[in-house]
């Protein structure tokens, strides 16, 4: 298990990187954290003629938080994003998802943007981006574009990037006020890719009634799959909302497949159970979030 030979490029500026990418075209591959690409190379399941190592583009190693949300640069490792307090405060779902990505040692190296581009249907961060309605900024020698998560994923391990494009950053928008999130998953071993995973978001209105309920699924479809489940719980206060019904609704709309770890039927069942669990947790978080942002003078004493 040794990688095949390739030409190695280690640009130190984004401009150089884009030039090389433009020149190598379909024969080139970007190397970020390498935690997905290098296993594929070691098993000789991929053999790009050129590798463009972006680890020297220090300008991409950044996490920015502002009113709009969190921007994660292409060189920000999972661990760094996870540790970023202001990012976690702005969007708790980031940390909720990142904690489930592999093991800490992999997160020390793997990048969040790399994971988004890699488009593994079992990966956590694409589901996070999809659930929040985020986007990816792509640049190439010929220009720049922003692709919404909904348009990013084409199939398993396939995103819509062109060969000459580099994803410079991912934009995770802040969810609406009154939103709580949760990420639950079941993996065979702790740290493994999930058999089924659900990222959920619940928004409460001013009367503490459910105004939005959505969930994104991993390992349930060829691409991260987002379902709007509001119809099952609309207008209900979190403690009486029928999240189990939302789970059933989700199950009816998902069509997972068998693999060596789980039957399709079991996966569908898990989706139902985990949807209810995730929504319930998200609703509790939403209540907590509202409580924190609007301290109730009576309760405070």
């Amino acid at each position: 298990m040794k990688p095949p030979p390739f030409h190695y490029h280690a640009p130190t500026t984004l401009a150089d990187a884009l030039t090389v990418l433009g020149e190598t075209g379909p024969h080139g591959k970007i190397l970020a954290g390498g935690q997905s690409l290098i296993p594929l190379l070691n098993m000789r399941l991929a053999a790009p003629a050129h590798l463009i190592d972006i680890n020297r583009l220090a300008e991409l190693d950044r996490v920015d938080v502002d009113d709009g949300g969190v921007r994660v640069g292409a060189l920000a490792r999972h661990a760094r994003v996870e540790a970023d307090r202001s990012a976690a405060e702005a969007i708790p779902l980031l940390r909720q998802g990142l904690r489930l990505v592999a093991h800490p040692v992999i997160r020390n190296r793997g990048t969040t943007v790399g994971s988004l581009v890699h488009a593994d249907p079992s990966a956590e961060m694409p589901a996070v981006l999809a659930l929040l309605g985020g986007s990816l900024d792509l640049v190439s020698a010929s220009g720049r574009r922003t692709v919404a998560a909904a348009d990013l994923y084409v199939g398993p391990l396939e995103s819509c990037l062109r060969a000459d494009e580099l994803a410079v950053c991912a934009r995770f928008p802040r969810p609406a006020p009154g939103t709580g999130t949760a990420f639950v998953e079941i993996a065979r071993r702790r740290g493994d890719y999930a058999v089924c995973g659900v990222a959920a978001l619940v928004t409460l209105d001013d009367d503490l009634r459910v105004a939005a309920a959505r969930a994104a699924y991993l390992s349930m479809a060829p691409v991260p799959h987002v379902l709007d489940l509001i119809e099952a719980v609309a207008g209900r206060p979190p403690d009486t909302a029928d999240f189990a019904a939302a789970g059933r609704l989700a199950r009816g709309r998902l069509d997972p497949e068998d693999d060596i770890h789980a039957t399709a039927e079991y996966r569908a069942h898990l989706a139902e159970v985990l949807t209810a669990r995730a929504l319930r947790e998200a609703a509790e978080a939403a209540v907590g979030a509202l409580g924190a942002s609007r301290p109730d003078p009576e309760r405070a004493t």
Partner: protein
Amino acid sequence: MSARMFGAPVQRTEDERLLTGRGAYLDDLGADAYAAVFVRSPHAHARVRDVDVTDALDVDGLIAVYTHEDLTGPMAEPLPLLLPHPCIVDGRTPHALAAGYVHHVGAPVAMVVARDRYLAEDAAERIAVDYEVLAPVVGIEAAVAAEHVVHAGMSDNVAAHLVQEVGDARAAIAAAPHRLELDLDIERSACTPMEGRGVYARWDEAGGSLRLYSSTQTASGVRAAVAAKLGLDVGRVEVVVPDVGGGFGVKIMHPWPEEVMVPWAARRLGHGVKWTEDRREHFIAAAHERGQRHTVRAGFDDEGRLLGLDVEILHDNGAYLPYGVIVPIVTSTQLLGPYKPGAYRVEFRSLYTTTVIVTPYRGAGRPQGVFAMERTMDAIADRLGRDRAEVREVNLIRPDEMPYDQGLLFQDGRPLVYDSGDYPRTLRMVKELIGWEGFAAERERARAEGRRIGIGLACYVEGTGPGPYEGGHVQVGTDGRVRVATGLTSQGQGHHTILAQIVADELGVAMSDVEVTTGDTRRMPYSVGTFASRGAVMSGSAVALAARKVREKALRVAADALEADPGDLEIAGGRVHVRGVPGAGMDLGTVAVLSNPLRYAFDEASRAATQFARPADHAAPPVPEGDAPGLEGTDFHSPLRSTFANGAHAVVVETDPETAEITILRYCVVHDCGRLVNPLIVEGQIHGGVAQGVAGALYERMAYDADGQLLNASFMDFLVPYASEIPPIRIAHLETPSPLNPLGVKGAGEAGVIPGAAVIASAIEDAEGFPVRSMPISPSDLFGLRRRFAAGEIPPLRRAERARGRRANETGEPDV
């Protein structure tokens, strides 16, 4: 007298090196060797029409490519069938490189040698093999159906067939008041040590000799096998086993194709050649085990006492049979566990399939046997409405019935006679440790909270330390240091430590003065190997016997010099002295000098010895008849039979009513391996075994598809548990000494893994209320069973129904 080392939780002598990166594993050696890789079959069954190497030839750094055509003489013949047995109908073994056919994905077809592994893989990728794909035979069902056969010239896929019977089991069952029949399955798994296999060979042209390093469990066996294949005198082959990163059975010798190809190429090229197995290769080209199907028929009385037991076993042995039929033989015999079966009949068929070969994996057929027997015990208890422990109790062999003859032949071809053990006490202890008596209430409480928990129990007996022999060599240097060698090898069991403990006690020296060498044919050419939990029993006994010889000589030589009676002398702290008079004596190093009449004063010890030198007796030769120069001794331990360790495991599991996740809440082990040489090490062995038992029960399986492709040939999908999956483990020891060896020890290496599948199935069944007859079980599998149970396709356990009835009575709710 220094403190006794035997029995003390001594820290390991191996560790200092291993903790600082100074271990030397196979791939750490031979920095300048060429790298070998193997072109392996992508098909489960095919005819090799042509191997075209043209494209590979322009890879820079390529040294050589070999195919079967290049092999001549013994190398061109099939590899040996190491352990023939009369029950083998048609024993097929592979060629070193495919000779026309391949019978499993991963079979070696060509060997590439290059300057380094990267380049060798480049070249291997460019070798074009033209295959004519043939029909695969995957799984026991397909093997039995024999619509296709694995090996040309055979009319079915039966490699071996054996019936053993004690009494008339079928008649006993027919006459019994109660009868039941169970189908019980265990799937394939594998040892997967963290270090794969590896071989490194150097040819010495001047000496016409070969030095071979192999990550093996059997140095002497590899030596003999390679010598035979290469047509060399055994004396010209040295096998040295470096540090080995785990074995668990898979590094046993038969020999492996790679183990003969690498030295063959090294000799041919006149250059060091090394092959380091990578993880993918390990999955598709090493060995698996466990895959077996059992049909059990039992007849029993009202107390649950077995009157007759009839077991049929179908064993999937994979593509070839190089290691014979050890696994199904072990299952057949060890299935009986601590019980008296009444009349017993066991029949197995060992079947070829187009999958990786099967050789023993820690436990070696016992986990399957224990699964079959313990599931049967549970089923009997359930049928009779009796406590599961009680039913076991009435079937146990009593201590006063020891030695107990089961009337069968064991894996070593010798009678299956249990030497010692207190099985009722073992069972009592494990019940106490897990809290068996109070558990019904605990389960009901949990149920009231909406939780499902269950308890399981399983007992086993393990034949350990089979012969024929193992040797020890003990030598005291003139510096007083003691060098010990034994032939079997070590893969992490701490042999260096326990052998040093034993020798330190026997010789009265400090452990720090004892150096141990294992698995080096230069130091101890006669050896069998490390398997069947034989390290402590066999080599421990052998080095003890050798040390006793040395001690006896030391006393004799010192007595002569001190003009004392040997009976008045003792050795302590590395000095021989007159008992009670520590001042009157000499260092063992000095005794070593005196033991050799050629006394050049090279060192301090030799000079010191001169004061003791007695005037020569000119009437006798300097080395008396029957004696030898030097303070050293060799001895062999060759026991009458295997010694039988035993134990019982109990576990409490929780199953999630919604997600079907299975969590182990507590795991208890009672273990009797005779006298403990080092409790720290024995517990470590048990921990590791239990982890593999849990792995085999809940996580690991070989997922072959119908074409014979292994779908999970990586650690990503073959789920070796992490720390997060292994529960804390509580252990209690019982020490019933074995009468069969000088130390009273029994083997401990495999025990932990043996009852894993049985005990966990027992507990899941208890939590769920329906029978579990097939292992491993994943949450997805459990979910599937629940579905079938809900649909009425699986009957409930009777005790679950009764409990439901009780609850209904108490609460006044109708019984549903």
